[in-house]
């Protein structure tokens, strides 16, 4: 059974259909990339899944349960985590706090534990801190050591992007939605992160859907590619089949001159 199943999804802003009659599914353990020209509705697609934009029509099933009408935090609790295209960390919280706070829905301590410093409270604090450090260690030494206690705004751009992924990982999801994870990175950083995306599935067991414009990354890591244009899926399949699909080429580059003449 597929982990995420979307049927007939439609999102309308005013009179504009940002997404219409979109069918989509992700199997457990798959890496699916969503591509398409600017304004194709890719980010809206993520917003709809994560509950930040209410769909006008359609159905979204996660692990067989509908997520429609749930608040974003409830959806995160069910096991869907996301990153943002324009990095949106908690800039004035430290690196480790960013990860500790995103384990909120996996923890339960409230007033009593904090005020009386109960054993359970201390244990929970220790555990989430350890988990945070474990996740950060996944990115090498860049986010560890003295950086743990630096505010997020002090990080370099690439590190902020890494921290976004780390923060999503800390919510302990089953499905990870990455919105342009390598945007703005240099070729070396891109190559490294490409490897990391593969490892995210192999070592951490996440199922991954990601939006990307960098075709090299898409080619290297995705099991399946879905192409959106004007809110409609126009092609789906392996990278090779999609990249030679005339509809996809047309969406990106426009129609060849001869064919226009033909149609006239």
């Amino acid at each position: 059974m597929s982990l995420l199943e979307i049927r007939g999804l439609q999102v309308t802003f005013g009179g504009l259909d940002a997404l219409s009659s979109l069918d989509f599914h992700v199997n457990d353990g798959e890496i699916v990339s969503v591509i398409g020209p600017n304004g194709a509705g890719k980010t809206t697609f993520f917003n709809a899944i994560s509950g930040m934009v209410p769909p006008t029509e359609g159905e979204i099933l996660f692990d067989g349960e509908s997520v429609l009408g749930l608040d974003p935090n409830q959806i995160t609790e069910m096991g869907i985590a996301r990153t943002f295209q324009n990095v949106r960390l908690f800039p004035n919280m430290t690196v480790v706090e960013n990860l500790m706070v995103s384990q909120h829905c996996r923890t339960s301590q409230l007033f009593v534990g904090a005020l009386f410093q109960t054993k359970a409270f201390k244990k929970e604090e220790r555990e989430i801190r350890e988990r945070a450090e474990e996740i950060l260690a996944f990115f090498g030494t860049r986010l560890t050591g003295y950086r743990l206690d630096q505010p997020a705004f002090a990080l370099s751009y690439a590190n902020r992007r890494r921290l976004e992924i780390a923060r999503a990982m800390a919510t302990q999801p089953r499905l990870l939605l990455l919105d342009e994870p390598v945007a703005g990175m240099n070729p070396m950083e891109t190559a490294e992160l490409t490897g990391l995306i593969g490892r995210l599935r192999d070592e951490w067991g996440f199922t991954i859907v990601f939006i990307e414009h960098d075709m090299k990354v898409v080619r290297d890591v995705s099991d399946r590619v879905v192409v959106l244009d004007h809110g409609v899926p126009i092609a789906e399949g392996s990278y090779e089949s999609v990249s030679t699909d005339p509809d996809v080429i047309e969406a990106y580059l426009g129609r060849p001159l001869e064919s226009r003449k033909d149609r006239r």
Partner: protein
Amino acid sequence: MTATLAPSGSSVALDWRRALLWGGICALSLVSVSLIGLPVGMNKRILIEPVLSLGYLFLLWIPLVFGYVATTVVVLEGVEARKSGVADLLAGLTAGLMGGIGLTLLMVGLDTVNIRKPLVNWSPQLFRLLTFERGLEFGIPVWLGICAGLGLVGAVLHQLPAVARRVMSWVLFGVMAVAILEAVIDDLAEGFHLEWLTDALYYKKGGTEGLTVTSAVVLALVLAALPVVTGGRVKAAVDHYRDAPSEDRRRTSLVLFGAIAVACVGLPMILGGIVNELLANVGLFLLLALGLNIVVGLAGLLDLGYVAFFAVGGYTTSVLTSSNSPFFAPEWHFGIALLFVVVMAAVAGLLIGAPVIRMRGDYLAIVTLGFGEIVRLLFLSDWLKPYFGGSQGITKVNPVDIGPFKVQGSDPRSVFYLVLFFCALAIYVSWRLQGSRLGRAWMATREDEQVAEAMGINTVNAKLMAFVVGATMAAFSGAVLAAKVGSVFPKSFEILVSIIILVVVIVGGMGNIAGVMVGSLVLIGILGGPRQPGLLQEFQSYKLLIYGALLVFMMLKRPEGLVPSARRSRELHQDEYLQDAWLGDEAETEGDQGAPS
């Protein structure tokens, strides 16, 4: 900007336009301070018998400061600084002189036209004060001379080495503080049996009469000698503390905290009534400020109707413990009433919070402002008069009976201890919650609500909890107020209370417990609360003016507050922090390259 363009080597001329501008501002300040009524209002308060009153002090410091400022220039790194010289002294003199001209014009105006109708303080008293009751021909040259002289002194101060400057300002502030705080020092001295000292220090012909000239001189000499004796040891200690590793710093903080706690418990025993009353007021507002600090500082919800919870606490206590409550007077013990105070505060927090919590930023501020007023008007209304007594309020609230003690307004020491208990509780709760799961959720909500939601935080719940915790602290404060005053009136819960608490939190240092403590000590202790007199009782009628001026000054010069939280000062000084972090990184990578890896 001309300074940056000038070729290096040549000395840059003084910017006279700037000096003249400062002079103009100086004149305007003198005139406006006079017309606000500060000199006349404060003239009765003698600081140094018989030469200086607080009223004149308000005029005199202006040319001094502007003389000092007139020659300040921003020196950019890598650009040769202008050599200071006679021109600077002249600039200071000019700035002061222009202030004198401003006062001259004011005096002439006071003498010739009468516009007392719109300007209440355009009065003969002001004229007499400015001319020293000797007419224009005496007043004008004297003020021109005084202002120019003070401007010159200011400019000279600016040229002196920093050490001399520090000693001078320390002496000036010290003497003025001792003179202004006469009432309190008197009160303190009685507690320590040091009456002989105050007798020697002050003129004392009944009431507060200021220092004598001799004692002022002696005091100045003693104060000047102090820095020589300590020899910068204090500064060294502070630096040492700042550079110490975090564990040492933690230990020092704990020791400091312990010392403050011991002082809080012990000192009131020897302090007199005035100081205890003051401290009790400070405590009441500290309690309020700590609650608001959670709502605004941690959760980032700008609540301008915070006074509503203060009122709920006060009225709940009054209804339950007063013998005079109109419809229901069980006359319970304060302790039992407290339980209901908590419940009512939580209910009020939820009732007000639930409808407004989904709003953001400005909308939230405006709506809570409205709710704050609604609560006060409800208590005032005829509709609820049978229950809460309308504008007459509820009187005869029983004193708190704790075994051998009775906490009531006539015994400020007992009130202080009661307040201290609640403050300690509130400080502990704030401190623990800050570093807990809930505190982090509040911070994340403040940073970016949408993302916090996407990261699995139920922001509505988190914000409601902040509201309820803040409401409970405010309600405790209201309960103590009711017991202290022995009555409650709607008048005590005006919107001004909300605003002053917010100012306390902002000026003290938002999001920092120590900052809030310092803020309430400085503002409520020295200036006074909305209806409570502070140390400087003379300023009572100018309190709001000073609050406003202070707030503007703080926003410009130190927006993070007097004692900022590390997080907030980083937020407001991101550039500097980034630069430091970057330089640190560079040093580190250089080190790495040296080591084989």
